[in-house]
């Protein structure tokens, strides 16, 4: 039964990571790029209106970053639970 318990806590940590990362995913694209676009467009950032920048540039950089963070987190988790050396 040890392995069942092991899997349970491994899985729960994984779900926690996924939820947090998806919150960032939503925030930087849908929230900053669309919902708050008009408000953020009042600010300027490196020659862009900020909302426009998130919609056409920033969100994409964040997406790439999020996946690599997840890769990192999961590799460590796999090691911790002995799935990976």
């Amino acid at each position, binding site marked *: 039964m040890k392995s069942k318990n092991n899997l349970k806590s491994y899985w729960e940590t994984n779900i926690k990571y996924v939820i947090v990362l998806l919150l960032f995913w939503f925030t930087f*694209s849908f929230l900053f790029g669309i919902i708050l676009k008009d408000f953020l*467009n009042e600010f300027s950032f490196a020659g862009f209106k900020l909302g426009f920048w998130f919609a*056409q540039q920033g*969100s994409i950089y964040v*997406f790439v970053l999020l996946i690599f963070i997840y890769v990192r987190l999961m*590799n460590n988790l796999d090691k911790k639970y002995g799935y990976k*050396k």
Partner: protein
Amino acid sequence: MSIQTWTYIIVGITFSVYIGIAIWSRVQSTKEFYVAGGGVGAWANGMATAADWMSAASFISMAGIISFAGYDGAVYLMGWTGGYVLLALLLAPYLRKFGKFTVPDFIGERYYSNNARLVAVFCALLVSFTYVAGQMRGVGIVFSRFLEVDINTGVVIGMLIVLFYAVLGGMKGITYTQVAQYCVLIFAFMVPAIFISIQMTGNPIPQFGFGSQLSDGSSMYLLDKLDNLNVELGFNEYTENTKPLIDIFAITFALMVGTAGLPHVIVRFFTVKRVSDARKSAGIALLLIAILYTTAPAVAAFARTNLLETISNKSYSDIPQWFKKWENTGLIKFEDLNNDGMIGYSNNDSNELYVDRDIMVLANPEIANLPNWVVALVAAGGLAAALSTAAGLLLVISASVSHDLIKRVIYPEITDKGELIAARISAFFAVCIAGYFGINPPGFVAAVVALAFGLAAASFFPAIVMGIFYKKMNREGAIAGMLAGIGLMLFYMLKFKFDFFGGGDVEDYWFGISPEGFGTVAMLLNFIVSFLVMNFTSPTPEKIKDIVDNIRTPEYE
């Protein structure tokens, strides 16, 4: 050397590379044919996924569409990249661990039902055929514009090339040609973009040049200038939305979820060695895709500014050479309505200029006066983008037929060798059908591409996600959910795109959401129906719950 000579040389070289790879990577077993033996490295798979994903539409049309849509173009930029986050976090590692060959395979086994498998096969075929027709057409168009051959001849040449490496090498051949095609297409996209960025803003990095000041001495910011030019001609400000934000939200969401649910993308993650490689290669794929996707909006803004400055309100007799050349292809049309000899471009009835969106990428090097070899490079890049996507789709089609229909349903006793022959024959027929649609494009192709994403969002995505994350989801729930999702999506599409069921206009859209974004609603319906039906039907067998546990556990390394 002339543009044509350069094009023959560059396209010739790239095609020989593709054929060479095909001969090197012939396969002998179905495992090699469907998933390249499951031995592809993370980087190779990342590059192949990027090429697989970036189609003729991404390469040729997207920058042009953004150029005309301004801020609204963000639906494609976010929609077609954000889906990879969902793929990496929710789907790819688990499907790799599951370790079979196709998406219907997963649906069929997880929901212990051949009916579920058949629903999935139907969706996979519908989505893939819709998509592949557009790719073959793209090949034909590139050939006809750059090499001045007939579009149909172009389609046939493209068919022969794909046939060669898809039938011979299956997934293995496709993977390694896609790696080569990624290199060609990204180089071809970036070179003109960098040249133009330097010309317009002095900054060699298009992503930064996009937000820089113009180098024409005015020291005005490019985007401010573009906003002004747009407003002067009666268009919306470039950086503001034209569609309602709720629609932008829905379209972006549908495209993201649809991307994560497209079978030809998912299947790429069956080919890597380990679960951890599936996650890593999703990251690499998105990184490589992001190079093009963050450059495209810059190209769009440069091209729009260039176009408005060089031809709007200029005398037709002083117009540069490239304008006349592209006029011959019908992609630019000028009609002097008020007979003043000037090109009047505006957002109202007095507009005298028609510009096809594709021209923004295809003619951009000429508009910016770049050397001939750069123009030829764009042709090779467009072909690489179209061929790589077509090949990936054809493999999904042939695997759906030979593996999911023949091996799993109709004739389970078939030997591995027999199945491999069946796979090759179905690949052959799939290429022929795709070619037919490329030569005789049905008028509804553009309309149904949105449907492809909507269908993937409404069918595969919820079924797979629940299959992994929700053990209680059972056969009845999943099938009912998929049917409800597809049904609603088809209904909405037929009503608003084809005028069935009384038709309707923009005012009649449900919640203000266009058919392009309706996949979001159909996906929600899928989830709701699945839950309701699950509660009234028999629970998931224990055996299946064990399979789910197994999928959730990475292998020991």
